[in-house]
């Protein structure tokens, strides 16, 4: 595990305002995700189906070595990690969608191709857009979602990062999810 690149280092740098480190971070994180997935696919040849939980836990361990983060920075660090994960995973989802559609020209979702009400799109890409819209209405709720969903933080950790009560996080989380679902159903965009 020690041979993994300095993701934590770069994260710390980025969290301290070094925008350039982000450029270096994103491809590293992506490569790591692919590597892990591949690693587990190999194991499957021996007759084992890979274990998602193991994959995820290891990914977190490799990506985010929290022990190297100074305690005072913790909240900030978490917030930055969440943002980074959002970026990486949304890019990743976008690329995968593109591949799945054959990487070809017309990869417009079926229903958007003509003037009909299209169905909710439950992809991470659509969620990302909806989340940006939510940020305009209620920034804190959008951050709660970013920290919980993209950052993988618990309710308590989220409360710590945002310096609000656990109860507030729970309420924000609940309403934000309903709001996002409604937004996704409406197909986004037309929210004023």
């Amino acid at each position, binding site marked *: 595990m020690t041979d993994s690149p300095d993701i934590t280092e770069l994260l710390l740098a980025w969290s301290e305002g070094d925008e350039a480190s982000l450029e270096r971070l994103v491809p590293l994180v992506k490569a790591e995700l692919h590597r892990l997935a591949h690693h587990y696919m190999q194991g499957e040849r021996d007759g084992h189906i890979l274990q998602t939980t193991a994959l*995820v836990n290891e990914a977190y361990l490799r990506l985010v070595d929290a022990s190297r983060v100074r305690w005072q920075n913790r909240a900030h660090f978490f917030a930055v990690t969440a943002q980074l994960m959002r970026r990486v995973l949304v890019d990743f989802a976008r690329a995968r969608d593109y591949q799945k559609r054959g990487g070809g020209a017309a990869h417009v979702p079926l229903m958007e191709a003509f003037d009909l009400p299209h169905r909710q799109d439950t992809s991470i890409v659509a969620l990302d857009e909806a989340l940006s819209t939510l940020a305009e209405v209620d920034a804190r709720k959008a951050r709660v979602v970013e920290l919980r969903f993209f950052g993988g933080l618990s309710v308590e950790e989220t409360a710590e990062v945002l310096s609000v009560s656990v109860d507030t996080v729970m309420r924000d989380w609940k309403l934000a999810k309903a709001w996002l679902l409604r937004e996704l159903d409406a197909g986004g965009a037309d929210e004023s």
Partner: protein
Amino acid sequence: MKAERMEAEKWQEVERLYHEASELTPPERADFLARACAGDDNLRREVESLLAYETRADKFIETSALRATARALQAERCELKAGQMIGNYRVLGRLGHGGMGVVYKAHDTKLGRTVALKLLPVASALYGDEQSLLLREARAASVLTHPHIATIYEVNEHDGIGFIALEYVEGASLASLPAGIPLKTTRVIRIGMQLADALDEAHRKGVVHRDIKPANVMLDARGQVKILDFGIAKLIERTTGDTGQLPHFSSPTVPQGSAPYVSPEQARGLPLDHRTDIFSLGVVLYELATGRRAFRGDTAEETIRSVVSRPHLAPRTLNPDIPPRLEAIINRCLEKDRERRYSDAKELTRDLAELLPLTDVGAALLSKMSGTWAIVKSPAVHGMAAGKSSWPKLAAIVAVVVLLVGVASIALYLKSSRETLRRQATGNLSSKINSLAVLPFQTLSPDAKDEFLGLGLTDTLINRLSSVRNLNVRSTEAVRRYAGKGMNPIDVGRELQVEAVLEGNVRKAGDRIRLTARLLDVRSGATLWAGDFDEQFTDIFAVEDRLSRNLTGALTLRLSNDELAQVEKHYTRDAEAYALYLNGRFSLNRFTEDGTKMAREYFRKAIERDPNYSQAYAGLAESFAFGEIGLPPEQAFPQAREAATRALALDSSLGAARAVLAQVEFLDEWDWSGAEREFKLALALTPNQPEIHHMYAHYLTAMGRLDEALAESKRFIELDPISPTPVQHLGWHYLYAHEFDKAIEQYKRVLVLDPNYTEAHRQLADAYWQKGMHDEAVAEMEKQLTLQGRSREDVVALGEAYKLSGWHGYWQKRLEINFERAKSTYIAPSTFAECYSRSGDHPRALEWLEKAYERRDHQLVYLSMTYDYAELRPDPRFQNLLGRMKLK
């Protein structure tokens, strides 16, 4: 700046109200929001629309994004190798790539059979529980057992990978037929009948396929087809909340290769019901009959656009050999407006079957007489194995002939029993009309949203006329099946055993409503009355009054003042509220969970417009008490009571609301005298509603008043002579009257009418048991469990338990199975009490009866009359229970 602050303030208000409302029960919410938003409709809509997502939001994005991504990756790349084990299955090889992932051929090492194994994909990264949702849905689909549906053997998870093991079907899919060559009409019809029959079975179990296409239909060497992939069929939305939310789709795009077969509503992303399958089946039949696709396009988008907006070419222009009637059938499946399609697959099966004698059996018989098999020997134009041997064909024809003879004898049986009934009902033949069927008014409006008018008005008229003591009016349930059939009204009248029928149509154009109706004498065919009304829609009440008055006049009914008041009564003066109410009745009469849910919304909206609209409250009460409620009783019954009480507070003469109260007091509150009072009031107010007689018969049986119960049961049959339910109910009556020979006879009669009536098999088993005929009882239960789609393993295990350790052993095994099932589904405590009692464990049976008592198990109301617990009866604890229930 100021505007922004106002926005922020408004959002805070939304937030506050959302959280406060979400603490309340759904019915309380409406009141709370009405008060809290006092006049601010925008605010209210905002909060309500968010609340509508509450249930779905529970599961949404609860799994972190990283984990969700990993899962998706994993599912995509997962590939099984030959020899690998998944649970009990050894992978033999890859069969192909289906719409939902890779399919493998595998060997079931435990049961020694070959299966097709499908791995479930992770359909959406955002719903962490998607996998278990799919599993649950697939399990629901596994209740289907039908000769033309590939059976689902098992739905399970292994190391976090969901899979479905299903029947391995040899043969090729319809998609492998050569393009451009039409099939022979007989084959199209045969395939169509098998598919429609399979769909009918699935739809009646609440399962919609949603992806019927040639690739999902396997054809074997004998010309038998099987539908694949019912495993991904989404159940018609069964969320328990009644917030009126729309069903959601977990799969956001149309599966690969399905575009030419999607229904217009599917293409639009609208909520789907079973009629989507009827459309897709129509596309498949079109293709088989013409050799060409009904809807085409260079891209999937274009194909879908064509499905939505372009008419298909008439099949006969492509293949003039297609009989006009088959063309009409296909065209009706392909109606873009689903309301104009076949309303169910059964009707489609019937129409196809009617074509068969002409084209197939008749021709085959003719050709047989002339000594040749010209027609039977189907030319192997299509390069398929079918038709290579004439034996299977011959067998198929024999089967069809046997079937036709069977149908004819049932028809004869029905006819004779009907005639007896009619003689009983009419007594002497006078010209006076005692019975009437109001056939569903046809809606002629161009606007699909006026669809409700026809059936809604019919239902209202039936309800009004039901209060006339001397007139037997067929219930809406009995007549609704004729909607849109275009059948000869006199024939329908005969079938419904009435002396007169009213038929008509209604058209709404702009704000005008036009209603045309005529009353026919079924015996003579004469027109007794005809009328035509054309009014402003706001004057719909006047139209109805005139119609009722004309009708009762033409029927020469002499009405008492009370009856007259009921017939001409208006429960609201607000035309819009009334339209909402009619919409509610229309939805309620679809007798589906979805329909019931929509009906609730309409009734609530009607009440919102006119808070004193008693009838809308009654409708709301009915939607919580009868039919496909879609809610557990402990949630539904209190709401039923509340709505019924409100209805009666506004208008004490509402029979339907009384019936709801009666049901609540009988089944849920065990208030016997209260129930009796309400039943009697309900019957006095609406004497000719079959369902109230049915319920009252149950009540009287529970109270041990068997003679009265028998009279009510017979009345139930008289009022609804053609449905199987009343016939079956009479069997139930004999069972509880401990007249087991009669019960057996009655159930056999039901099973001739409908061999798949599971409840009849179950109760017949009980009757056999009571006669000491254990072998026969076990055989019936096996049929029942198989029809219910219980796993083959369970059924086999039960048979073995019975062979090894007899009746007691059988029930011990049943107990085991029930305890296992209880982990995933609710099983009433009384069921366990019965099993224990039947397995000879009386102390445990008593224990479970106590639990049933605590849980207010509805089945306990029959405790004093049931044939179960014979050996427990003397036990003081049993007597004590009866005492507490005031059933002594």
